[in-house]
């Protein structure tokens, strides 16, 4: 000993993350250097190039094969990581397309011209007239994306915590940047921030307790401790383990939007600018469930008898609350927020099932991780597509998110209503959409894990969930236009033709929903191959 061995970093494998992170940093510089007129173009170019490069590298690393722990054992680049990175990058890029949209809003972006200006003041009006905009949103989003990539790949708790904050902090800001309805946007930002900070604290304290139990931050170290009982055996040690497990769960479930840690979701999704909502709804959920599975399968997998009942209860609560509350919503974004909660519940059923090779899943059988990952693709595609359509349906006040103004959309804009229906059907789990295959696979994993009763509950809740998606379809296609009521706002919304980037988001959503609904085999196979965490 004596000499300090140079740490092996494994830059090649980390490259996708590094590229995104670096691009974000460069983006900050761009803000400082590039003239205002060119900034937007430069940022867009930068972001898309970075995502493109990262995607290429991820895929090439993945196809080269091999699950490796890199970055001084802090990051695990294994099958699930590669899969999650890929879908994160794709969905990230698609959401960035929505960030770039300017056509629907008459030449300006969806973001505040000057976030610091108090709404309604001269300063704000000037900024509007100046056609200023915050091009920082893209670097911020890139930072968030890099955090999201790191979060599910983190192999030790401290890295995970740092990643959590990297992904959260930019999102807090992004939430407050809506151009219209500034007050709501700011409120959303504050709520998200305060509650997010609280949950981070829970997560961190849980991490500390697990460290206290095992003497290691490494997931494999905790696993070792549980298996072999190294450090804190005895009742006190067990108490640390259980408390740590519980607190970690709180922190992670918060990010995932599971009941009872979901309260922020509807408010933030509603208040945030719709592109940000789409980004959050799709990508944060991916990152959070990735991290959740890594911690609970790798570090706490040997103690799953302790957390499975807990997670089963949470899964049920999440499905039920999300679905039931969505029924009475009157705002599209809010309804989609509750819907995302319900989907979190469905995903959790597979997570609880914990059907992995380590727990006796057979060769060729769908594992929990693979089914969750497939579900994420289906859910993400439909979510981003649905929010993209939300940005297109507008009236005089901006986005017409009141469901009442969607009435009769099927008559006025059949194509858009049809596409939206496809997303809704996918959410509802109707076959020939990817949502159905997703539902099938998560329930199958739960069943494989022996949780037959949970599947039964889940299918019954699915009916309730389907009900509110159908309600929207009814509104679009079957409800008659109310005879022009006197009040404003009841007038039906119109679909504004968006730019190609938003159309791309819709297109990717539809394509993924339909293709993976009809022919999901290859993607499922891919998910299946990439479903085991490295320890």
């Amino acid at each position, binding site marked *: 000993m004596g000499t300090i061995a140079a740490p092996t970093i494994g830059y090649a494998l980390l490259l996708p993350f590094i590229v995104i992170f670096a691009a974000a940093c460069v983006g900050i510089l761009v803000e400082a250097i590039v003239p205002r007129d060119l900034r937007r173009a430069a940022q867009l170019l930068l972001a898309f190039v970075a995502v493109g490069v990262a995607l290429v590298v991820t895929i090439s690393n993945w196809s080269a094969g091999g699950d490796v722990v890199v970055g001084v054992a802090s990051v695990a680049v294994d099958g699930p990581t590669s899969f999650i990175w890929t879908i994160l990058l794709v969905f990230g890029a698609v959401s960035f397309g929505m960030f770039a949209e300017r056509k629907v809003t008459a030449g300006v972006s969806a973001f505040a011209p000057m*976030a*610091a200006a*108090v*709404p309604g003041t001269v300063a704000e009006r000037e900024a509007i007239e100046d056609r200023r905009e915050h091009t920082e949103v893209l670097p911020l989003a890139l930072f968030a994306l890099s955090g999201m990539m790191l979060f599910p790949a983190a192999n030790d708790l*401290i890295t995970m*915590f*740092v990643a959590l*904050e990297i992904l959260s*902090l930019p999102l*807090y*800001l992004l939430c*407050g940047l809506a151009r219209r309805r*500034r*007050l*709501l946007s*700011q*409120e*959303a*930002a*504050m*709520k998200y*921030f*305060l509650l997010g*900070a*609280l949950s*981070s*604290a*829970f997560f*961190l*304290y849980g*991490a*500390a*307790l697990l*460290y*206290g139990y095992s*003497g*290691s*931050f490494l997931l494999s170290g905790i696993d070792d401790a549980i298996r072999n009982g190294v*450090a804190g055996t005895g009742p006190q040690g067990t108490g640390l383990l259980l408390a740590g497990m519980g607190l970690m769960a709180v922190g992670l479930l918060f990010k995932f939007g599971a009941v009872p840690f979901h309260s922020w979701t*509807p*408010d933030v999704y*509603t*208040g945030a600018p719709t592109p940000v909502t789409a980004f959050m709804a799709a990508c944060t959920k991916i990152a959070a469930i990735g991290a959740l599975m890594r911690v609970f399968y790798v570090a706490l997998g040997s103690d799953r008898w302790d957390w499975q009942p807990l997670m089963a209860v949470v899964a049920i609560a999440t499905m039920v609350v999300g679905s039931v509350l969505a029924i009475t919503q009157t705002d599209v974004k809010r309804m989609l927020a509750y819907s995302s909660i319900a989907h979190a519940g469905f995903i959790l059923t597979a997570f609880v099932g914990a059907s992995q090779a380590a727990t006796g899943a057979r060769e060729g059988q769908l594992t929990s991780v693979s089914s969750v990952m497939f579900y994420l693709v289906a859910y993400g595609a439909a979510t981003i597509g649905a929010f993209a359509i939300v940005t297109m349906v507008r009236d005089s006040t901006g986005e017409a998110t009141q469901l009442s103004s969607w009435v009769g959309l099927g008559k006025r804009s059949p194509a858009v209503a049809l596409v939206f229906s496809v997303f809704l059907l996918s959410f509802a789990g109707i076959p020939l959409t990817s949502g159905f295959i997703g539902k099938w696979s998560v329930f199958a994993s739960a069943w494989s894990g022996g949780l037959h009763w949970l599947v039964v509950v889940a299918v019954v809740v699915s009916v309730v969930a389907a009900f509110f998606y159908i309600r929207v379809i009814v509104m679009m296609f079957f409800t008659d236009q109310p005879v022009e009521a006197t009040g404003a706002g009841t007038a039906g919304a119109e679909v504004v033709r968006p730019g190609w980037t938003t159309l791309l988001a819709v297109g990717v959503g539809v394509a993924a929903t339909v293709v993976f609904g009809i022919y999901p085999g290859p993607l499922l196979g891919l998910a299946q191959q990439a479903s085991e965490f490295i320890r």
Partner: protein
Amino acid sequence: MTDHYIVLSAILFAIGTIGFMTRRNAIVAFMCVELMLNASNLALVAFSHKNGALDGQIAAFFVMVVAAAEVVVGLAIIVTIFRTRRSASIDDANLLKF
């Protein structure tokens, strides 16, 4: 001996949690979160000491950095809201509900 630190950290964490739920001022609420983070730091350091390894203490540094970054973002948000609403009460921001 270490156990006492752990207990203290737990108490601090609880105070932070309760404070967050009871205080209306956004800054104070946020400070309560900081208190919880520091409780975690204390626990990390204590466990590090107990385990005879340094990684817990290093972790505490990470946490401090992250906390600092969080303050930056948090204060920015709170200040903006304050400028808009002329109030730092978190109960006043109550447009989004149900």
